[in-house]
């Protein structure tokens, strides 16, 4: 502890440089926390969904519609307890940048098939009874400051025009990865106002026995094999994974770009820390003359680098956690997005490693410094 003042004084030698180095390390770890959380959230999204539910979509791709006649045929398939349809709406509320998902659904059964989505009974009843009603996720309500019974207007992109909806219910999700940023409304409303051009996007099937999922999937796909719209049936989890990969190989892109930027910033920070240590060659020689040992001086440099990297890392990591918990700009794209404590732990471990690496070279140089040579330069 008696050496603490010496180390801290060195850190405060150039306050501006120390603060800028801290800031660059903090920015790097903010980026790390964000990107790592995108990856973990993407991974958790593919874990969303029940094992007892299947999704049937057009075999060509998820953006291709399904004939509505499939609905009844799927409901009648042996082993299927219930089937419901979902359609993508693609509307805009005020500003296209404020994206959120909107689905046209069958109000009579959809929420019964999702017990993990909680809607107050009276609100669900009100939603079912009114064709222009909508049920909205709690976070989406908070984001736009909406209130119950408010009428909101969405501008259709796939289905042009202004669409008015009255919010009759607010849902909460037991599983955070399900998200609370989705907007649900009646498919009948969409069908009517789209001059009957709206189609079912995909179907969700509830099974009587989840162990039969493979056999039922094969049976359904075989049933529609030679039709105009062949199907692909898979577990809801696999379907969610398909949604994610629809964006392309997001994980690879995020990892590749993020890693490059992250390490570029870290190298700059490490170089600055090394420069700061090198500038003190003369002082190291003086301390050696006073009797400080090589190992002591090396450890001062290491501790200094560790302090900067750990403090900067902590600021960046906790900053990311606070930012994304208070106002989550990614929630609409990545339901359940948050910075996990595990990510912060990994980040701190990397910060410690950064400190050790950045401090190692100047520490080694300090230890090896020839006092005679150094004093010749400083006098």
């Amino acid at each position, binding site marked *: 502890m*008696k*050496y603490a*003042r*010496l180390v801290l*004084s*060195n850190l*405060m*030698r150039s306050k501006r440089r120390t603060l800028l180095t801290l800031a660059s390390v903090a920015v790097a770890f903010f980026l790390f926390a964000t990107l790592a959380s995108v990856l973990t959230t993407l991974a958790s999204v593919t874990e969303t969904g029940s094992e007892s539910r299947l999704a049937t979509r057009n075999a060509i791709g998820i953006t291709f519609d399904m004939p509505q006649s499939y609905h009844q045929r799927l409901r009648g398939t042996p082993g299927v307890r219930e089937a419901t349809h979902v359609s993508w709406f693609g509307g805009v509320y005020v500003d296209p940048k404020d994206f959120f998902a909107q689905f046209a659904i069958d109000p009579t059964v959809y929420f019964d098939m999702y017990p993990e989505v909680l809607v107050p009974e009276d609100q669900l009843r009100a939603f079912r009874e009114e064709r222009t009603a909508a049920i909205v996720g709690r976070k989406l309500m908070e984001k736009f400051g909406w209130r119950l019974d408010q009428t909101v207007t969405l501008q259709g992109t796939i289905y042009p025009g202004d669409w008015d909806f009255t919010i009759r219910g607010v849902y909460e999700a037991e599983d955070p990865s399900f998200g609370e940023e989705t907007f649900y409304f009646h498919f009948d409303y969409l069908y009517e106002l789209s001059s009957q051009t709206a189609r079912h996007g995909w179907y969700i099937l509830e099974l009587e026995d989840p162990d039969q999922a493979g056999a039922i999937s094969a049976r359904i796909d075989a049933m529609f094999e030679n039709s105009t719209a062949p199907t692909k049936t898979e577990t809801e989890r696999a379907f969610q994974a398909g949604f994610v990969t629809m964006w392309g190989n997001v994980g690879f892109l995020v990892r590749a770009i993020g890693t490059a930027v992250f390490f570029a910033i870290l190298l700059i920070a490490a170089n600055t820390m090394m420069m700061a240590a090198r500038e003190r060659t*003369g*002082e190291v020689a*003086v*301390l*050696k*003359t*006073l*009797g*400080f*040992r*090589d*190992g002591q001086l090396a450890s001062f440099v290491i501790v200094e680098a560790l302090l900067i990297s750990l403090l900067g890392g902590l600021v960046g990591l906790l900053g990311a956690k606070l930012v994304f918990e208070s106002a989550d700009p990614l929630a609409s794209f990545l339901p359940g997005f948050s910075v996990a404590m595990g990510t912060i732990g990994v980040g701190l471990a990397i910060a410690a490693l950064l400190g050790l690496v950045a401090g190692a070279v100047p520490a080694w140089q300090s230890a090896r410094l020839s*006092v*005679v040579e150094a*004093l*010749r330069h*400083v*006098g």
Partner: protein
Amino acid sequence: MALVEVHDVYKTYHKDSRGVQVFAGVNLEIERGEYLALMGPSGSGKSTLLNMLAGLDKPDSGTVVVEGVDLTRLKARQLADFRANNIGFIFQFYNLLPVLTAAQNVELPLLLTSLSKSDRNERVRIALGVVGLVDRSDHFPRQLSGGEQQRVGIARAIVSDPTLILADEPTGDLDAKSADEILALLGELNKEHGKTILMVTHDAHAAETAHDTIHLDKGVFHR
């Protein structure tokens, strides 16, 4: 037994594959309580001798014994401990750490001891009192004049009560008035506190304040 015994020391520096011999079998003894000035032309080996006595440099052959310890036999770690316990070093350009106050600079050698914080503070106060700078203890080096900085440097050199004080041109960067104050202070340290001092200087006036002057020329000492 003399405090310092340099016996049959050879030293050659190698630069750009050329060897420059500094010492060829030199001998020197310094008695306890002596105050000596060391003079000689540039490159004669004055600083090399100081560095050897401080255990910062080693001869190619021969022995350098200080306080009964042959420094040529010690390893780097032991030499560091030896310096901390026995040597006080005064630099020409003071070499105070700019980020520390005067008191904190003086405290540096004491950080290597097992003294408590309060004991360290007391020693620092005494050392700053000897050089007359107690009232400037919280000032940073940039807030002190050159003479004051050198006095802080002297306080740092004596705070751990070393056996031998080595001063490398302590007045070389000072005006005449400040130089006289520093020389008076060194004389007081020798006279009042019994410190053994070896001072390298180019200044004949400074050398006159010492008990004796050693002239180093072409690798040979002349008293």
